[in-house]
């Protein structure tokens, strides 16, 4: 296999890492108005991700930088083309991150209310817009001969992309709620499980439509297999949540997100950014990638670093495995 093909899948893996991990952060953030009945509840929710949101968010920095290094043309076309969408994502990530860290710095409820609001918006906006962005990449956008995007921000808000955005929004929402049921104790855990049933139903309908649309419009046999597996995992997660197996429900939710991302990347292959106006202007794995030498250097680095990263990040989650309860928050307040 050529290295640029390998890196196409490594980039996919990095975005899977990002969406699976920061995905539940987004979901937890969006769940504040649904599950947080009082300040202690909201603190329980925030503390399920308090120690890890930063590490999870770092996945997008790594994915972005790796995209830059392995596929400079793809990075340049996508990031300049989706300028305003990415601006909104950046602004959302800024207010979300700051809110996690600053909310608890002062006791006043007025202060906390501000940051609660920003956590919700800062989580919902990227959850929606990442789906819109990737759906547009799969669908293809207008590119000139220099691979520059020639459409406008509003061209990105087409029906397929909006369904894509809604899909990631709902997937991350449900993913986050299942995570809450896995990471909390007491009443909130039960409420999260019940909410996950309701949001799960909506998620199944929307995600299945999006996956079907993707397969029919842009897919191959390969794509169909991933999409089918994603649907099976999503339904499986729903049923396991009904049964009360939180751990497995969460695992299958993560698998759903991973398989959905694979569906999108499989639909793209061997393009990375198809031009909807003229296929001659499309960016492909071949014409968007770096030189074999750079990819070789990157491959060695990734090969050496990956096991270490998996080990210490996995260990971190293990250290922080204890569930959060109202008791945890109240005890620490003294």
């Amino acid at each position, binding site marked *: 296999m050529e290295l640029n093909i390998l890196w196409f899948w490594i980039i996919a893996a990095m975005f899977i890492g990002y969406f699976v991990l920061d995905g539940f952060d987004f979901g937890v953030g969006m769940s504040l108005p649904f599950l947080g009945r009082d300040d202690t509840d909201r603190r329980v929710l925030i503390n399920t991700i308090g120690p890890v949101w*930063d590490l999870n968010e770092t996945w997008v920095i790594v994915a972005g930088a*790796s995209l830059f290094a392995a596929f400079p043309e793809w990075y340049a076309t996508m990031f300049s083309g989706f300028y305003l969408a990415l601006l909104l994502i950046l602004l959302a990530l800024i207010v979300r991150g*700051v809110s996690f860290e600053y909310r608890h710095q002062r006791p006043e409820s007025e202060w906390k209310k501000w940051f609660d609001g920003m956590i919700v918006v800062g989580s919902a906006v990227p959850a929606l817009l990442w789906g819109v962005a990737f759906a547009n990449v799969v669908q293809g956008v207008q590119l000139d001969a220099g691979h520059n995007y020639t459409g406008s921000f509003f061209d990105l808000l087409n029906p397929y992309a909006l369904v894509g955005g809604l899909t990631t929004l709902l997937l991350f929402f449900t993913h986050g709620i299942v995570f809450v049921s896995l990471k909390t104790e007491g009443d909130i855990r039960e409420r999260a499980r019940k909410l996950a049933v309701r949001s799960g139903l909506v998620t199944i309908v929307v995600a299945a439509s999006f996956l079907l649309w993707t397969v029919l419009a842009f897919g191959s046999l390969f794509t169909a297999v991933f999409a089918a597996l994603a649907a099976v995992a999503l339904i499986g997660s729903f049923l396991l949540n009904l049964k009360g197996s939180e751990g497995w429900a969460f695992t299958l939710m993560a698998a759903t997100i991973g398989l959905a991302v694979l569906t999108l990347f499989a639909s793209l292959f061997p393009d990375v950014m198809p031009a909807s106006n003229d296929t001659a202007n499309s960016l492909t794995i071949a014409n968007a990638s770096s030189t074999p030498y750079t990819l070789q250097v990157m491959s060695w680095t990734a090969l050496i670093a990956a096991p270490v990263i998996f080990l210490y990040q996995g260990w971190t989650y293990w250290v922080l495995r204890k569930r959060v309860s109202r008791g945890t928050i109240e005890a620490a307040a003294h």
Partner: protein
Amino acid sequence: MNEWLDPLLLSRWQFGLTTVYHFLFVPLTIGLALTVAIFQSAWVRTDKAKYLQLTHFFGKIFLINFAMGVVTGIVQEFQFGMNWSTYSRFVGDVFGAPLAFEGIVAFFLEATFVGLWIFGWDRLPRGLHLATIWLTTVGSIASAYFILAANAFMQNPIAFRINEARGRAELTDIGELLTNPIALASFPHTIFACFMVSSGLIISVAAWHLYRKQHADTMRPALKFGMWMMVISGALTTFFGDSLSLAMTAAQPMKMAAAEAMYKTATGADASFSIFTLGTPDGVSELFSVRIPYLLSFLSTHTLDGTVEGINNLQAQYVGLYGPGDYTPTIWITYWAFRWMIGLGIAHILVAVVGLWLTRGGRTPAAAWVWKVAIWSFPFSLASMSVGWIFTEMGRQPWLVFGLLKTESGVSPNVSGLEILISLIAFTLIYGVLAVVEFRLILRAVRQGPEDAPVPDPLTGETPQRVTVY
């Protein structure tokens, strides 16, 4: 088109604004991570409560600041593609790799272990918990190395070849790229300057409390530590600053000539360093200046009879090399930024030196002005750092990648001035508000002072463990 909607101008302002802003938080993150790690190590070794108090106290300031560094950092990485897509296409094969290494090797380490450090007090054994703050420190320092290696390519492009057919620079040797002489000098120069910034903070905070005659049990050792760290890292910053100016003279003689606003080539005593110039620093009219003969020759070549090329000479050379055009940076910025960097740097090193003398052998200076001066250490050190960064980036102009790509050629061709104006306004507003919030939170944490040390339970004799919740 309306000149206010010039995408190049707006993109430059946005990059300048967001970079300078981001770099207000980064030095403090790097310096305070190390400081906190040292205090916590002292506590683990000696079991003295004051070191634990200092760990928590400076740890809190570290974390308030850390959050800002993280969220403003993502903007930096996205901006290359968003605003400078032509640049990204041109250099991605070379420049992308150190950026990716920064994420894979450094950011993951930093972001993972800082979370464990914050929440790990009651979940990890003491020694292991101490390791988490050290790994955070290692991650933050490693990230500085990779980003400076990437920046060094823009200052002194090496380890590449130009692929004419693809219209891009391609990496030829990763080892050479990562050992760029500019990076080897700018990395220690920057890192020790980061330690100066954190020392500046410690001195300011400790002096403020001691001036008010409070928390002497923790703030006095903190002050001593800060001053020693300032003197040591100040000396090393100066030393590596000298190495950097030598390497920079070789790579970008224009930048060093612009630092001195020296239009005509000069040798020996004439290659003097002006400490202060009254009049317009455009070389046309000079009313008054204080000059140190030979110093510029020494700084640039490490000899007293060296020749330092002047701007006019270099401009003519570059026209011959790169075609017609203006190859001179904005002189008043480079001239004054260079002086403010050095002047402020020396000023707060001196504050620390004098402070060490005044506090020797347990003495406490009574004069109020001594403390009032010491409190300015932090703003001085941060300002010195900031203008140093402005100098090195503005001194590279008009180039984006020296000799290869001009700034005006690197901008995204398809992003409109209006879009960039929107983002520039959005970043300015949100950064402005956050600066106020962050500054107030840090002031509040500073005013509160260190928390009392945990008292052992009278029945069990056990000291309660700290539990962090958000």
